[in-house]
């Protein structure tokens, strides 16, 4: 850890920012400053207002009150024109959004060049740009194939393009919104070493994260938002996980841990399952899930776990092999048949596959069982019953929303995940497929998810936990298997694997090599 650059000049100052959305105050009177070469971590629960604050800084939103100040040419702080991304870019602010802002149909180079040349010019000087980027990549250690189409890049590579976009414009401040939410442990590590390097060259960095370990190890200073207000701002030295978690949530967060318990009989079996060629395909996968266990599947995304999840969700059918639940064949089952067979599925991308945004919370809670008699009579919906059950779920799962009639899209990520949990787990499923269930969730929401999965296990359900988060896997799983290039390893007892080898095996080393 570098020393805190206490006396370096300010590169950014947020002064008393307030932003309201209707009745909701997303940011209340938040002030924040950043010095040259400093890495500031911004912590907060889902919906605490972190992204909103950064969007104001970058000009996507206009604050209702307060100002953003950056050093002008003479070095003194000057107010940044509100609501203008262009002004922010000019002022040397670079932003890597939570959801990437890349045009998929363009190459990496084109995305970086976008907007850097006059639109009226008839020439685009790519050779020069390429030169500058080559040297930037060398200095920062961020390497990507500049000619590759974005749609062909992995998540990690896309993120590097995003950072290069900012660096190419000579950013003095770099903001990263949950940069590690979608990265593998290896990718995260290399990202942070890059950030350290960039900071030591004088870049001011703000990053948002829910992962307390990386926040503690990678930042100089930590600011915590709660309910839109800043509740703490202190040097990283002297902080600890428990204290930070309490600051974020406002109370102590109980950590759920797996109790030791004998697993039951084989429940759900995939035998020799393969899909076709291509990205994310799987070959000859054998998997045997026991009742009452959590089987963790570790792997870098894009190695077949997406396809595996699709198969189990009933969204794809294998080319060969069989899927059997308790002796009943489910190889070609549809999503509906999977649900009816008692398989709960928690999708990886909860916004895209989990909820129908404009429909209400109640409707989203009922969607999987809408054809069940409890929800309709002769095809006509039973509104009363649906609303009643929704209200129960809202209380028992602590879904924070403006009632069962609120559109689901207005909910924060953690609460959206709670909707998914409530509707899938309430049906007492025999098998639970949880794909990246805590990605992007804050400590509180993550703890909730974990508790629910452990409850299912305790009930005797089998849980398949697909995750890139090794801590999560180690903590919850009874057994862990590794998926790489579509091949699934033999699961091992969690007690007999260690974090380091697991990471290496995810990266493709054989068990022997890794050990």
């Amino acid at each position, binding site marked *: 850890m570098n020393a805190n650059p206490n006396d370096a000049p300010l590169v950014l100052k947020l002064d008393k920012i307030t932003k309201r959305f209707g009745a909701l105050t997303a940011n209340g009177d938040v002030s924040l400053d950043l010095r040259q070469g400093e890495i500031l971590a911004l912590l907060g629960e889902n919906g605490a207002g972190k992204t909103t604050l950064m969007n104001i800084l970058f000009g996507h939103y206009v604050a209702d009150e307060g100002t953003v100040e950056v050093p002008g040419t003479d070095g003194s702080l000057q107010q940044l024109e509100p609501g203008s991304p262009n002004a922010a870019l000019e002022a040397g602010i670079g932003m890597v959004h939570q959801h990437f802002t890349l045009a998929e149909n363009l190459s990496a180079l084109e995305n970086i060049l*976008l907007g850097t040349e006059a639109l009226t010019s008839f020439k685009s000087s790519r050779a020069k740009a390429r030169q500058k980027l080559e040297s930037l990549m060398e200095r920062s250690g961020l390497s990507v194939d500049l000619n590759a189409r974005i749609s062909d890049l992995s998540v990690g590579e896309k993120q590097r393009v995003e950072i290069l976009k900012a660096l190419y414009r000579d950013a003095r401040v770099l903001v990263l919104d949950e940069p590690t939410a979608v990265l593998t442990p290896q990718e995260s590590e290399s990202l942070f070493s890059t950030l350290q390097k960039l900071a030591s060259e004088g870049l001011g960095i703000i990053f948002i994260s829910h992962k307390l370990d990386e926040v503690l190890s990678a930042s100089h200073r930590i600011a915590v938002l709660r309910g839109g207000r800043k509740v703490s701002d202190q040097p990283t030295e002297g902080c600890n996980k428990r204290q930070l978690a309490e600051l974020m949530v406002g109370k102590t967060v109980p950590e759920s841990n797996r109790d030791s318990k004998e697993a039951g009989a084989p429940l759900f079996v995939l035998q020799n399952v393969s899909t076709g060629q291509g990205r994310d395909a799987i070959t000859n996968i054998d998997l045997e899930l026991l009742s009452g266990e959590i089987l963790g599947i570790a792997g870098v995304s894009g190695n077949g776990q997406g396809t595996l999840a699709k198969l189990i969700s009933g969204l794809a059918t294998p080319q060969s092999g069989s899927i059997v639940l308790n002796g009943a064949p489910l190889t070609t089952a549809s999503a509906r048949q999977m649900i009816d067979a008692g398989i709960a599925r928690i999708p990886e991308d909860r916004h895209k596959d989990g909820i129908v945004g404009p429909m209400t919370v109640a409707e989203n809670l009922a969607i999987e069982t809408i054809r069940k008699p409890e929800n309709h009579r002769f095809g006509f919906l039973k509104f009363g019953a649906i609303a009643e059950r929704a209200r129960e779920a809202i209380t028992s799962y602590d879904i924070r929303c403006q009632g069962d009639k609120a559109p689901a899209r207005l909910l924060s990520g953690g609460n959206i995940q709670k909707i998914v949990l409530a509707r899938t787990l309430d049906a007492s499923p025999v098998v639970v497929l949880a794909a990246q269930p805590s990605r992007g969730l804050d400590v509180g929401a993550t703890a909730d998810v974990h508790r629910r999965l452990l409850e299912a296990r305790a009930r005797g359900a089998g849980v398949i936990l697909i995750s890139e988060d090794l801590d999560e896997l180690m903590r919850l799983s009874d057994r862990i298997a590794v998926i790489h290039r579509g091949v699934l390893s033999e699961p091992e007892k969690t007690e007999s694997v260690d974090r380091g080898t697991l990471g290496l095996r995810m990266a493709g080393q054989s068990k022997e090599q890794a050990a």
Partner: protein
Amino acid sequence: MSDIFDILLSINFWNAALRISTPLIFGVIGALVCERAGVLNLGIEGIFTAGAMAGWMAVWLGAGLWGGVLVAALAGAFFGLIHAILTVPLGLSQHVSGIGVTLFATALSYFTYRTALPDVSSPPRIEAFKAIDVPGLSDLPIVGPILFQQTPMTILALVIVAVTAFVLYRTPLGLAIRAVGDNPSAVESQGLSVYGLRIGAVVVGSSLMALGGAFLTMSAFDAFFFGMVNGRGWICIALTVFASWKPGKALIGALLFGAFDAFQVRLQTEIGTIIPGQIFLMLPYILSIAALVLVARKADYPRALLVPYFRGQR
């Protein structure tokens, strides 16, 4: 059979094919420019009509042929601007706004024409563009007689295809247009204006469409008639998909369509007695659908097409 080869081998046939496809070339490039920026422009049919009427009327009032071309382009830009305002900052459904613009442009053109010329029993004529005969070039084998017996507007259409391809793929502006049709937030996060780019593209695209209409009244013919656009605009919408939003393919698609039309006109006189004429008229549409089925999987859709962009909306 030999008749069919005779047709396909004749210079006149290819001449006709290029001539028939000219309005479609303008239209499909115009539609492509709009859609590349993420805006479907179903106003095309009406914009064709407006271009045909305005261009012709300007010439008739003495603006000169190129003056007419300019007026047509401005008329297209005007209706394009309406569509752009409705669909870009206001984010209205692009289908409806487009159909609204078609209704509006058509009605306004007809009303203006009729109010200006209330009592004509035969449509007034203008001196239309003539085929250009470039000495030397016209004598080139094959290409000469096909290319250099066209009117200047056909040459203009071909030039526009080349310019569009160059701008789209070789300039910063084209880069921005392609990006805004794929992911507007990519453009905004790089400090460019999503609205500016989209509005600009729709306005420019619409003026190209209007030139397609102007070709009908100032080059293919020398007078304005009610209903003379006759579905040509809609064809361009189909051709755009067929061309996977690529200018080169758009040119080929328009030419194929023109060739097919020229061919069916010739074939109809041969075997029109056996097969109902409508079969021939249907074929281009059926073939377009067949082509769509073939290219659908591979089509490189502008991902943001039809999706309005609101800054900071969740």
